[in-house]
C-alpha cells in the first residue's frame, strides 16, 4: 500500500454522510449520501478493491432530499437508513426513513459501469421513521451486531427506539426517552454501544454527553461540559466497554471512562478547527481517526488507552494509510474505516 497512490473518488455533489456496510462481508464497501438542494440526491456505493487498489462505484437515486446522515443495516446489506432534509412549501423538514436498495444494482453496474451515473436506479422506500409528534431526525442508529430489527432515531430532544417488522416495511415506536431541561435541547449525535448486550446508548447535546439505558429508557450517566463547545461526534471503543471517544467544536478529542465522568482519561488537541467526527478502528482500538474542518484527518495511535496497551505493533500499512489521508480529503477511501461523516467541503 505504501507505494500505491491514494485512491480518490470524486462526487459531483457535496456530501456529508458516509458509512461502511457492515453486513457486506466479502467486499469493503462504503455508502455515501450527497447533499444537493437542486438536484436529485444520490447514494454512492463504493467498493474498494484493496488488492488492485481500485474503486468501483454504483449510484442510486435518493429523491427524497439531501442526506445528512446514513446508516447501513448490520444484518441485511440491502437495507439502509437515511436522515434527509425535505423541502416543501418553502419549509425544510428533516426526516428519516428506511430504504432498500434495488436487488439488481450490482449486476447492472457490472454490465455497463460507465453509464451507471446517467441511469441510476432508485431506492425503494420501506418505511418512514417519523410520526407526527417527533420529527427533525438528527441521526438513525442501527443496533450494532443485531438482526436489523431495531433502530434508534434521535429527533430533537427525543430518542426513539423503533421495531422494524415485516421485513422492515413497518416501524413502530417501542419506547422513547426524552431529554428534559431548560431551553431548547436537541440531540446532535449519538452512538449505540456494542457492549452490555446492546442495552446502552450515548448521546450528545450541546456540550454534554449522556448515557441511556435502553431497557428502562432512563439516563445512566451524564458528562456535563464534556467539551468547551458543541460535541459533534462520539464513538465507543469496540473492545473496552467503558471507554468512549468524543470530539467537538473546541478542537479537542477526548477519551472518557464512563465510570468516572469528572475527568477525561485523555485529551488530544491536534486539530486546529472543529472536529466533526471520531472513529475507532474496529479491530485495532488504539487507532483513532478524527476528521476536522481544518481539512485534516488525523489517525492517532493511542496505545496507552487501548485494549492492547503493550506490544502488537501497529501495521505500517495502516499508519501510512493515515498519512495519506492527512492530505486534502475530498473522499476518504479507507480500508476498514467504518464510518466517516465525510465533510466534503468546498475545499
Amino acid at each position: 500500500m505504501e507505494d500505491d497512490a491514494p485512491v480518490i473518488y470524486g462526487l459531483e455533489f457535496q456530501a456529508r454522510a458516509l458509512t461502511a456496510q457492515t453486513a457486506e462481508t466479502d467486499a469493503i464497501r462504503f455508502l455515501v449520501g450527497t447533499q444537493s438542494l437542486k438536484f436529485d440526491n444520490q447514494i454512492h456505493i463504493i467498493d474498494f478493491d484493496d488488492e488492485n487498489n481500485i474503486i468501483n462505484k454504483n449510484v442510486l437515486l435518493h429523491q427524497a432530499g439531501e442526506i445528512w446522515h446514513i446508516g447501513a443495516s448490520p444484518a441485511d446489506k440491502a437495507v439502509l437508513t437515511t436522515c434527509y432534509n425535505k423541502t416543501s412549501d418553502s419549509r425544510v423538514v428533516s426526516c428519516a426513513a428506511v430504504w432498500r436498495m434495488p436487488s439488481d444494482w450490482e449486476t447492472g453496474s457490472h454490465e455497463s459501469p460507465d453509464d451507471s451515473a446517467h441511469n441510476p436506479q432508485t431506492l425503494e422506500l420501506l418505511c418512514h421513521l417519523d410520526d407526527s409528534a417527533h420529527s427533525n431526525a438528527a441521526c438513525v442508529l442501527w443496533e450494532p451486531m443485531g438482526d436489523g430489527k431495531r433502530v434508534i432515531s434521535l429527533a430533537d430532544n427525543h430518542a426513539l427506539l423503533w421495531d422494524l417488522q415485516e421485513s422492515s416495511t413497518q416501524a413502530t415506536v417501542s419506547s422513547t426517552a426524552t431529554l428534559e431541561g431548560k431551553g431548547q435541547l436537541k440531540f446532535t449525535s449519538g452512538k449505540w454501544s456494542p457492549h452490555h448486550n446492546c442495552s446502552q446508548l450515548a448521546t450528545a447535546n450541546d456540550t454534554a454527553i449522556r448515557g441511556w439505558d435502553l431497557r428502562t429508557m432512563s439516563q445512566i450517566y451524564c458528562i456535563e461540559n464534556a467539551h468547551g463547545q458543541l460535541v459533534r461526534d462520539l464513538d465507543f471503543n469496540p473492545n473496552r466497554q467503558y471507554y468512549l471517544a468524543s470530539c467537538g467544536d473546541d478542537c479537542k478529542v477526548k477519551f472518557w471512562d464512563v465510570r468516572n465522568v469528572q475527568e477525561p482519561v485523555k485529551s488530544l488537541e491536534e486539530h486546529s478547527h472543529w472536529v466533526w467526527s471520531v472513529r475507532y478502528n474496529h479491530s485495532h482500538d488504539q487507532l483513532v481517526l478524527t476528521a476536522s474542518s481544518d481539512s485534516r484527518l488525523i489517525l492517532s495511535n493511542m496505545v496507552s488507552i487501548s485494549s492492547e496497551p503493550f506490544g502488537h505493533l501497529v501495521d505500517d500499512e495502516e499508519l501510512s494509510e493515515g498519512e495519506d489521508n492527512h492530505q486534502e480529503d475530498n473522499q476518504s477511501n479507507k480500508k476498514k474505516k467504518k464510518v466517516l461523516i465525510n465533510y466534503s467541503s468546498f475545499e
Partner: protein
Amino acid sequence: MDGEAVGSEAVSEDSGPGRRHRVHGMLKLYYGLNEEGKAEEQPESLDPCDINGPHFDPELFLNKLRRECSLAELMDQETCMVKQIRSLDSDMQTLVYENYNKFISATDTIRKMKNDFKKMEDEMDCLSANMAAITEFSARISGTLQDQHAQITKLSGVHTLLRKLQFLFELPARLNKCLELQAYAQAVRSHRRARCVLQQYSHLPSFKGIQDDCHAIMDKLAQELRQKFRDGGSSAKDLSECVELLLQLDEPAEELCDKFLSHAQSRLESDLQGLEAEIRPYPSASAMKDASGHRLSSTAAAGSPTYNSPKTSTIPSPTSNTDILEFIDRGCNEFVSSLCLVITSYQELFINHAQKGELASKNIPQMANGKLNAFVDDLAARYFSLVERRIQEEKGVADNSLLVRALDRFHRRLQAVTKLLPGSAVPNQGTEIVIRAATERVKQYLSALQSFYMDSLTDVRQALATPRLSVASASVAGGGAHLGGPASGRDAPNSLPELLSSLSASILNQIKSVLASVHLFTAKDITFSNKPYFKGEFCSQGVRESLVVSFIKFVCQSSRQFCESAGDKGGSTPPALLLLLSRLCLDYETSTISYILTLTDEQFLVQHHSPVTPVTTLCAEAREAAQKLLNHYVKVQGLIISQMLRKSVETRDWVNTIEPRNVRAVMKRVVEDTTSIDVQVGLLYEEGVRKAHSSDSSKRTFSVYSSSRQQARYAASYTPSAPMDTNLLSNIHKLFSERIDIFSSVEFNKVSVMTGIIKISLKTFLECVRLRTFGRYGLQQIQVDCHYLQMYLWRFVSDENLVHFMLDEIVGSSAHRCLDPAPMEQSVIEVICERG
C-alpha cells in the same frame, strides 16, 4: 747637640701643623735625616741641582748657575739664597729654645713623682701588718665556737624528726577533726603527705597502727565524699572538688567519670526539660516525637538510666509565648553554658589533670575522652531535636531577622563547644540544623511568594470584574461612531495597564523584600554566614534556584494552568486576566527575569559551582507561557463571538425569513465586542504591522471585490449541465489563495491577536452557514450581514484580504445552500448597511 735636636723635634709636634710640617721637612733635609720609606716618596729630588733635594751637589749647582744665568740673575739668586739661609737660621734658633724649655719642665715633674711614691710605700707596709693581725684574731674565734655549732645542728635535726612523728601520731585525730569540719580537702592533703611514710615504715607496729587508723578514717571520708557526690545537690564547683579529692584517693577513674557524667546529665536534663516545656506541644508533631522516641530508646539501651525519666514526665505547658530568640537564648544560657562548664571541669579533672599525674599510665585520658564525647553527643542530639522542633514552629515569615539572630546565637554558642571539644560532631550538627532551618525558611518564603502571587491575581480578578462594564463601553471611543451609546467609562481607575503595572510592581517588591530577608542569612556579622554552605550552595541552590527560579517557574506554570483549566469550564477565567497575564509573562521574558536574577546574583554574590538554570531557559518558559496565554485569550474571545454567531445562525428559520431591512443585531453586537476587545488588547499590546494595502481600502466594497466570481458561481448553479464547474471554480480559486490556519499561534501584537479572533469567528460563521438551508431572503440577509462585517472588521486585521476572502466564502456557501439564490443588489446592501 744632635740628639737634643731630635728630641726637640718630637716635643715641637704640638705647634701649628702647617708650619710645623714645613719646618720639620726642612730640618730633616738639613740634617740629612732620611728614613728609607721617605726617600722613595721623593723621587723627584734626585736632581743634584735641586737645592732642597737630598742629592744636592753644590758644585754642580754652582756650575749650572754660572753656566746658565746672567750676572744679574746670579745676583738675584744669591740675594734670594742669603735671604733663605737667614730665615732658616732664625727658625732653628726658635726651635732649639722651645725644646730646651720643655725638657727643663719634664725633669722637674719626674723629681716630684719620685718623692710621692716613697710616701705611699710606707703606708702599704702599715696596712699589711694590720691585716695579718686581724686574720690571727678570726682564726682564734672560730676555733672556740666550733663545738657549739655541731651541737645545734644535731638538735635541730632531732626537732624536725620529732615534729614529723608528732604529725603522724596526731594524724588520725586530725583527720577525724577534718572529717567533722568537712574540710575534706585538708584531710586528703594531710593523708597524702603521710601516706608514703606510713607505707615505708608499716613494718613497725606503731606506724602500722597509725596507718590502719588513717585508712579507716580515709575510707569513711571517701564514703562520705561519694555520698555527697551521689546526692548531687551540690554545685558544679563542689562536685568537681569532690571528684578531685576522690581521684586523689585512688578511686577508679572510670567509675568516677560515669558518676560525674550522670550527675551532670541529670542537671542538663532539667535544663532540657525546661526548654521542652517552652515548646508548644502541637498535635501534628507525632511523627517527629516518634523519631525522637526511637532515638531515645536506642540511647537508653546504651546505658544511661536517668535518661528516660524526664522524658516521660513531659509537662504539656500552656502555649508558649516566648519567641524563638528568647528560646534560643535560654537554651544557650542554661543548657549550652552548663554543658560547656561540665566539659571544662570534666576535662580539667579527668584529662588534663590525669595526664600530669600518675593516672596517665592507665589510659585514662582516652577513656575519659570517649565517655565525654558520647555524653556530649547524646545530650546535644536531644538539645538539637528540641531546637529543631522549636524552629519548625516558626512558621510565620514576618520577622526573619529574629530567626536569623536566634540561629546566629545558637551557632555562635556552639562554637564554645567546638573549642572545648575539637573532634566533636556537635558543631557540624548545629550547622546542619542552621542549614536545614535556612532551607526550610527559603521554602516558606517560596510558598509565601506563591500565595502572594495567587492573592494578587485574585485581587486583579476582582478589580477586573468590577469595572468590566466600563471597559466594555470604552470600546465606543476606539471603535468608531456607529453607535451613539454611552461614551464614558474611560475613567475606570483599574484600567488594564495600571493593573498590570501595579501587579508586576507588587510582585517585584515582594520578591525584593523576600530577598532582603533571606539576605540576612548571609550577612557578614552572622557567624554561620562564612560557612561554605552559606557562601556557595545556599546562594546558588537555595536562594537562586529554589526561591527565585522556582517562583518564576511557578508564575509561568500557574499561567499555563489558567489556559488548561479554563478550557474545560468554559471561560472561568475572565479573558482580560488572560491578556493581562500574557503581557506579564512577556514582560518577564523581556526584562523582569533577567533583572530579578541579576539582582539575586549581585546580592548574594553567587558563584555558580553547580549548574544553575540559565536566564534564557526561564525566558523561554515565560515566553512560552505568554504565547500560550495569548493564544488562549484569542481562542476564548473567538469562541465567545463564535457562540454568538452560531446561536444566531442555528436558531433562525432561514427559509422563511422576510426581506432584509436591517443588519441583524447580532452583527452589531459582534462588531461592538470586537471593538471592545481591540481596545482591551490595545491597552497592553503594541499595534503591530499590517500588510500594506491601498489607503482607500475602506472605500472598497465587499461586493466589488467578489461579485464577478460570485455571479459566475450563481450562473453556474442555474445551469444543470455543469454542476462540477462550481466546485472546479472554487477549487481553482482555493489553489491560488493562501491557506488560512484558523486556530494558529498569534504574535505579540494587537493586530495579530485581532486577526486571530476574527478568523475564528468568521470560520464559525462559515461552518454554521454550511449546515443550514436558505431561502432567497435568507441569502440576502447573509449578504447584508457580511457586508456590514466587512465594513467594520477590516480595520482590525493584518491582512484585510483575509476578511474579504472569508466573508466571500460565507456568502458563497450560503448561496450554495440557497433554494432560490437571488442575490441582492449591491447598492441596496450598501444603503441598508449605511443606515446601520
